[in-house]
């Protein structure tokens, strides 16, 4: 079974899904990520789906589950890079991905996590 590598950058874990995952691969990723969050003490998880051509209800549920699991483990999950056609299809399918934060790309995802880390310590008046 193909596995998706989990990369660590500072206190962020980054996963980029580059292959058409079968259901077992999706479940394995869920477990690998939960382990990696605990092992690394990461505060954020970014899942890059730029290369993902479809998000069906199974993958959608996986994204929501990963978000819930990492929240329980004190990390925030951000899904980045969703293609427009995927977003349209997902909503029509009936999945709203409630509870999953998204950002348009990796850069914005990282910025969101950094904002959150700073929010507790410094007030930023603008």
């Amino acid at each position, binding site marked *: 079974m193909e596995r998706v590598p989990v990369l660590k950058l500072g206190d962020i874990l980054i996963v980029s899904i580059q292959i*058409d*995952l*079968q*259901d*077992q691969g999706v479940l394995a990723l869920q477990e690998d990520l939960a382990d990696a969050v605990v092992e690394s003490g990461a505060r954020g998880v970014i899942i890059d789906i730029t290369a993902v*051509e*479809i*998000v*069906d*209800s*199974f993958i*959608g*549920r996986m994204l929501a589950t990963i978000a819930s699991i990492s929240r329980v483990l004190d990390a925030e999950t951000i899904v980045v890079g969703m*293609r*427009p*056609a*995927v977003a*349209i*299809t997902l909503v*029509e*399918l*009936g*999945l709203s991905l409630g509870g999953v934060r998204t950002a348009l790309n990796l850069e914005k995802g990282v910025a969101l996590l950094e904002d959150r880390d700073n929010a507790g310590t410094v007030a930023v008046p603008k």
Partner: protein
Amino acid sequence: MTDAIELPIAVNSDVVVVRQRVRTSAQEVGLSLVDQTKVVTAASELARNTLVYAGGGRVRIEVVNNGARGGLRLTFADEGPGIPDLELALTDGWTTGGGLGLGLSGSRRLVDEFDLESKPGEGTRVTVVKWAR
């Protein structure tokens, strides 16, 4: 002109093969990127249903024509336990398999034509069509 291919749905990796084959056919009949994505997503849901609820089956992928308009017809068939209450099975959120209950109802929204036939004890056949615009 009618081209058809038939693929087995017996193991998890077959769902991936079905998605890829439907994608190729959808491109060939000239579906837009959004429509390709919709029909591949519907195919993924229906192939998984065939596997999870019936223990397997097959899909027929056909290129169809309606005048000048091309389209893709997918027929998922199995000899599984069948669906006792079709209306209930098509309700958003209804599931007997521990999923989200969006497979059938959601797929129906993603395609142009949707037909569900099922006889308890004999099997289920789901036929969907997506037309090029």
